[in-house]
């Protein structure tokens, strides 16, 4: 792990600092993703892509900056923006996962059609993975896609689909080969949300905001060219996606930013005159979390270094989601306590940027609970860490190779 910046990297850090000094003030404050982005956000993001501060390594042919892969560069940029408190543009699923996935395994046509608008934030994506009966056990999805001439015809239901109410595109995991073992029977399709036969219904959650949806597919026709890789390769494509998702969920920049907010909160006198930092128990908890955050940040740099050296980080990578989401949950929990009795306030506005501080922290806290569950619950994460990371033997499986029946689950959820 090289802990000093090379000349090249120092130059980049300086360049970012200059950019931020010149342009930082006109960066918009993003809203939390409950609504589609507005023009100010799109303009700012385009400026970032132009300078290579977003989608830096995407080839110029597809609208990117065309830089050679260098993970330390990414870390330097992110840290510069985080420290300045300036929004670093969209980190939505399209930017973070779909574009890299298509660049890795998509056809030339798919890259040409989708990558540029996606990385500019003008083509928004949502994810059709989970189903009511296939949550933790993602490989047991039941949504069918049947070949009919040059098309596939999709029937089924997805759940947990963030942004489906305004996304332009969806990527869907479907069962195309029902006779094959469950992981091998899946395919990955990308299609417009305007395709006839798609219905989106909101799935309200505990925060009271519209974050997730159910998406129903009834005889939805998709040209076969919309499949990424081949029939039965869906699980492989999904793994490429999930790799990015897990890293993101343990995002150290988010942790660092939140820690800063928490420190500020705890040093500020509250309405009743108390200063949380002077309450010894709260201060001790803050110090514990500060150390934990420092460790995760250092750990992330280590992973980036290893990635740059093409080292397989193994268990070190696998722990990131579990560690990061747990820490975020404890940070928001402490913030609520720091408010004292007024910490029970919760009055979310339609536009999250109008929320008061207590509401923001309560929203974050509930959202964190969702993040502990989403993208593989903590239980699933621990299995992955133990089996793939530590090499412990799997459970003796009762499951057959075919997906389990899930009709009982549907009934339970509907009732």
């Amino acid at each position, binding site marked *: 792990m090289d802990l000093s910046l090379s000349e090249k990297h120092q130059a980049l850090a300086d360049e970012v600092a200059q950019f931020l000094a010149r342009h930082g003030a006109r960066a918009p404050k993003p809203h939390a993703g409950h609504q589609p982005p507005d023009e100010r956000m799109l303009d700012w993001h385009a400026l970032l892509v132009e300078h290579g501060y977003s989608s830096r390594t995407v080839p110029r042919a597809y609208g990117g900056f065309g830089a050679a892969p260098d993970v330390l560069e990414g870390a330097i940029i992110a840290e510069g923006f985080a420290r300045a408190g300036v929004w670093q543009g969209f980190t939505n699923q399209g930017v973070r996962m779909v574009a890299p996935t298509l660049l890795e395994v998509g056809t030339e046509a798919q890259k040409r059609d989708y990558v540029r608008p996606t990385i500019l934030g003008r083509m928004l994506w949502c994810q059709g993975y989970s189903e009511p*009966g296939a*949550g933790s056990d993602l490989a047991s999805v039941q949504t069918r896609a049947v070949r009919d001439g040059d098309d596939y015809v999709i029937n089924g239901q997805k759940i947990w689909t963030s942004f489906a109410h305004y996304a332009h595109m969806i990527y869907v995991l479907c069962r195309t080969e029902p006779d094959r073992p469950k992981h091998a029977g899946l395919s990955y399709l990308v299609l417009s949300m305007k395709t006839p036969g798609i219905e989106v219904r909101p799935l309200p959650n505990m925060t009271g905001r519209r974050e997730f949806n159910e998406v129903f597919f009834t005889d939805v026709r998709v040209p076969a060219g919309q499949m990424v890789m081949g029939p039965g390769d869906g699980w492989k494509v999904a793994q490429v996606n999930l790799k990015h998702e897990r890293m993101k969920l343990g995002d150290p920049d988010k942790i660092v930013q939140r820690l800063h907010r928490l420190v500020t909160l705890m040093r500020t006198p509250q309405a009743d005159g108390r200063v949380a930092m002077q309450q010894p128990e709260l201060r001790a908890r803050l110090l514990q979390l500060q150390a934990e955050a420092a460790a995760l940040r250092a750990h992330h740099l280590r992973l980036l270094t290893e990635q740059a050296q093409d080292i397989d980080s193994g268990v070190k990578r696998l722990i990131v989601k579990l560690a990061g989401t747990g820490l975020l949950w404890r940070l928001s929990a402490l913030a609520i306590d720091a408010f004292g*009795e007024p910490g029970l*306030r919760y009055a979310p506005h339609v536009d999250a940027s109008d929320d008061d501080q207590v509401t923001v922290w309560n929203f974050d806290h509930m959202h964190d609970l969702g993040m*502990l569950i989403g993208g593989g619950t903590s239980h699933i994460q621990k299995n992955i860490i133990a089996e793939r990371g530590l090499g412990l033997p799997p*459970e003796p499986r009762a499951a057959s190779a075919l997906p389990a029946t899930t009709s009982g689950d549907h009934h339970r959820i509907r009732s």
Partner: protein
Amino acid sequence: MRAVAQRGFDMALWRELQALGVPALRVPEAHGGLGLGLLDAAVAAEALGSGSVPAPFAGVAVMAPAWVKGAASATQQAEWLPRMASGEMRVAIALDALECAAARAPSMSAHALTGQVSGVLDAAGATHCLVLLGDGRTALVAADGRGVSVQAQANIDGTRSVADISIDAAPAVPLDTAADPWALAHRVRDAGRIALAADAIGAAQHMLDSAVAWAGERVQFGRVIGSFQGLKHTLAEAVTLLEPCRALLWQAAHAHDQNADDAPLLACHLKAHVGDVTREVARMTTEAHGGMGFTDLLGLHHWFKRCAFDRQFLGTPAQCRDEAASLQGWISPLPVAVRPTGATA
């Protein structure tokens, strides 16, 4: 129920609770009540928490009768307690002055009350409000009277109500018979803490029961998920945390009823410990439900929020632990907030 939940009071539901004798629990039999102890009220509070019932209780049915019994004259008691027992008179609780500097607390001259109080419990549907004054005395003010303005405050738990009240020279009645009014105010708060802890235990128990049921039904990887040891161990940890809280609750309520020396300490410990345990149990059991726990479909989050309210209101765990240290002489009396407590009333 959702719409009601936003307000924290629903007259139809309240009439059902009246029929069950809920508001009468803590009113003496001589005044038309059931004459039961806080231990009984704690059992009722647990049941209300278990059902996440959107109705006033800790303030109206527990703290208010205790305060009136401790501070009101015989005539006042004879006038108010029967109406409180019947549920017709619903008294919100403003103990704000326990936690702020005397200068900022409400004050009274002649029979006119003036001041700002925040964190008023059970304000929705209340007919009156008991207000602690900066000098330790108490005043009763009509909730819809002249000079009284109630601003409901949105809180995480839509099933109960908290408000700020502005009072400007409102007509009010003093309650003046308490020998040690500060001690009484602390004792009233202790009763409220115990009721909120009971509520949280009920709510967390509901979440645990729900998680156990879900674990026994939900199939993933070809197995009922409750057969996986990981989930089993989580739920075993949850019950191991939660179950002893119930015994501590009963002991604290009993000690309160007996006016035992350690009653204030037990109330602090109970409020703090139950607050920490139920936050953990709420997290563990929500996680056990997977994504469904996070949605509105199962409605589990209503209980999560119930626990959050109970933890935060009338003293967070950290605040209650500081008080517990002070009560035991481990640290000097607390700086601003907690006033001299003396013997319990």
